[in-house]
């Protein structure tokens, strides 16, 4: 690699160089502007530097656009209902309901819950072909309850998927819960069936209570459903989500699973208030048309409702369908490798060629030289990264959709956070690597340290580490800033594989970014001190 710089690259104006005169005093701002131009010239003219940056970014774009994914979704087939807060939701369950007009209450005892979950991989049931089916197959397998299998009472604004609701339920292994409008979840006691449940409606207010014996009642929660009409649908429901058996083993996190189902047996039913229909209707709400395991036994005194699905926020991945825009950015790490290498050699090249002496002779305020380099390098990587991220998210998302993969919609705010965040991640990493280069001075050590510190933690947390170890790596290393790419929240009330590979990070976006900013700032301070104290 030839590393010859044009003379003005070192910040020398042709005048001062040829005549050796002291340049006329100029404002600090203009000096800084000139320094920045000098740094930009260096960055632009060294063969290989821009090529490395653009090559890394091109690989990132290519990985985002040439996805191997293939699905069978059309927007009509896979679009999720919209919940009361405008978010995308899953609303699939079996509902034995009748209209309730005005205030009233419904009380019931969940006598028992039983269900089916996919057979354990490797067991005989699976070998015999009864194991987990593809997501669109019927649930089958062995008796058992998914942790978030739900049976209980619900009051809902009609039977349209996505309509407002409040529900109290017993679950597979999360005790009694009161949930409403998909994202809200409140824990009751840890009791299991048999359990008495009650929902009372007063205007827009709905109170959920539970009891172990039908006499002593405990209030679980009280929620307000805004705009709830006078007549609502109320009754018993059952649903059971996609079951995932997570093997949080050693080499990454593996998971297997499939659909599950649950049957709730209800007795001691008591109604208060105005229930004009006087008979129960069994309705399968939402869910795929081609898979129906719902069943109703509505003759009493023991009612049975069987269902599969979930009433929860929509998720991508194992527990839901499709992907998030985060997954189009899977190639970011290639660009990250490129900017880390570039950042390190931008500085070490100066030391290697002795150019730094020229640079510092031309601009004796060493801190300013470092600042100019940081601004130029950061600015260039930010812009290039921004263009790449926009291309990947916008076009990559469309490519996925055109190949039948469902891409979850996100708000403009989140989209901006992901795109700008990716650019910021690249820019700050480049500056961090540059600071490392200033301190370590040799490209060998600087590049190695940069890669080991910034890139490897992310790669390892995706491929080698799992569970807690991966989470810690993504909390304390500069790679924490990848949290900026998270586009959907992780919900505790939905069992899913929340791993970095699927776009879920242990820190919130701005928290993760501050970790990187802290690293970069600390490294720049050390670099400034080192540059000032040491001979160049």
């Amino acid at each position, binding site marked *: 690699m030839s590393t010859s710089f044009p003379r003005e690259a070192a910040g020398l104006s042709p005048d001062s160089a040829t005549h050796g005169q002291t340049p006329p005093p100029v404002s600090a701002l203009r000096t800084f502007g000139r320094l920045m131009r000098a740094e930009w010239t260096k960055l632009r003219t060294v063969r290989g530097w821009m090529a490395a940056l653009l090559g890394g970014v091109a690989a990132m774009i290519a990985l985002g656009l040439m996805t191997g994914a293939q699905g069978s979704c059309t927007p009509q087939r896979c679009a999720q209902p919209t919940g009361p807060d405008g978010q995308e939701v899953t609303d699939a369950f079996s509902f034995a309901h009748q209209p309730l007009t005005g205030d009233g209450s419904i009380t019931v005892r969940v006598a028992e819950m039983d269900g089916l979950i996919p057979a354990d991989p490797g067991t005989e049931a699976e070998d015999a072909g009864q194991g987990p089916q593809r997501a669109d197959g019927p649930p089958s397998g062995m008796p058992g309850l998914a942790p978030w299998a739900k049976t209980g009472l619900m009051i809902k604004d009609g039977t349209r998927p996505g309509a407002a609701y409040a529900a109290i339920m017993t679950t597979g292994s999360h005790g009694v819960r009161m949930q409403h409008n998909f994202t809200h979840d409140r824990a009751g006691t840890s009791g299991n069936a048999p359990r008495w449940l009650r929902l009372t409606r007063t205007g827009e207010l709905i109170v959920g209570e539970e009891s172990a014996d039908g006499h002593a009642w405990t209030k679980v929660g009280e929620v307000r459903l805004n705009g709830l009409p006078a007549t609502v649908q109320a009754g018993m429901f059952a649903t059971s989500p996609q079951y995932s058996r997570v093997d949080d083993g*050693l080499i990454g996190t593996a998971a297997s699973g499939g659909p599950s189902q649950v049957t709730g047996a209800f007795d001691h039913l008591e109604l208060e208030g105005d229930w004009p229909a006087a008979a129960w209707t069994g309705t399968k709400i939402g869910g795929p048309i081609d898979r129906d395991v719902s069943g109703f036994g509505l003759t009493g005194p023991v009612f049975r409702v069987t269902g599969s699905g979930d009433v929860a926020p929509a998720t991508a991945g194992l527990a839901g369908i499709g992907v998030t825009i985060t997954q189009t950015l899977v190639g970011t790490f290639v660009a990250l490798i490129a900017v880390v290498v570039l950042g390190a050699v931008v500085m070490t090249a100066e030391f290697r060629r002795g150019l730094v002496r020229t640079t510092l002779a031309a601009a004796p305020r060493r801190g300013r030289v470092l600042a100019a380099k940081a601004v130029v390098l950061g600015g260039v990587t930010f812009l290039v990264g921004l263009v790449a991220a926009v291309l990947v998210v916008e076009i990559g998302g469309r490519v996925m959709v055109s190949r039948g993969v469902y891409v979850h919609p996100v708000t403009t705010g989140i989209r901006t956070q992901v795109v700008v965040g990716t650019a910021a991640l690249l820019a700050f990493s480049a500056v961090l690597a540059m600071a490392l280069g200033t301190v370590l001075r040799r490209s060998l050590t600087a590049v190695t340290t940069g890669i*080991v510190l910034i890139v490897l933690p992310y790669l390892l947390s995706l491929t080698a580490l799992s569970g807690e170890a991966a989470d810690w790596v993504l909390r304390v290393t500069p790679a924490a800033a990848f949290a900026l790419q998270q586009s959907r929240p992780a919900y505790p009330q939905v069992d899913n594989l929340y791993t970095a590979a699927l776009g879920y990070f242990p820190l919130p976006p701005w928290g993760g970014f501050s970790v990187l900013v802290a690293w970069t700032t600390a490294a720049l301070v050390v670099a400034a001190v080192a540059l000032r104290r040491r001979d160049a």
Partner: protein
Amino acid sequence: MLHAEWTKFRTTPGMIWLLLIAIAATVTVSVLAISTADCPQRDCGVSATLTGVRVGQAVIAIVAVLVIGDEYRTGMIRTTLVAMPRRTGMLAAKVAVVSAVLTVASATAVLGSFVAGLHLLPGRDLPALSLTEGEVIRAFGGSILYLTMIGLLGVGVTVVLRSPAAAIGSVLGLLYVFPIVAAAVPDQDWERRLQQIGPMDAGLAIQRTGDLTDLPVQPWHGLGVVALWAVAALLTAAVLLHRRDA
């Protein structure tokens, strides 16, 4: 020629340190993996003990890149080629020295992990290691071969690219791009296909013990995939070295 390459390797500042880092990183991560592992499967003991290889390989790759990358960076390569006009012979000598050194370093790292596993596994209630089982020997011996071949892949890529920085980026990218993309694609067939061709996923199949029926690629075939990658890189390097100016 061998002697010259060995002298260069020996005297390059930082090399010994990097090798020690590679060994230390491998053993440390293995120890961490053993002490946090929580899995009932029979092959757990072996895979926990060999987790460090996934980290160590990155440093090994960096060493391999620097062995020849530094010559390109400093222009030393021209001196080398003047002294040794038979370029293929020069490359072969480098390959021999790198293989020897990396085999020793990898063996130390893997054996260090093995000793850690021997001492720590019983206390963690994980299946103990036994060197009398063929598949355990395959896992540990294969890991040494794997690390060495990753190093040779690094040498090949560096000669092709002629720049240490670009080569480090490319080798690490090559190692990690397949598993990361595989983890992110929702399509299982594609995931399997990527795991069959990626040097890291395929090569580390050598570490699998126990039930092998579900693997995307069988242990020795997987190591063969890495060997193909390394040979392809070295052949390209040999051809380009012959044709191009240094």
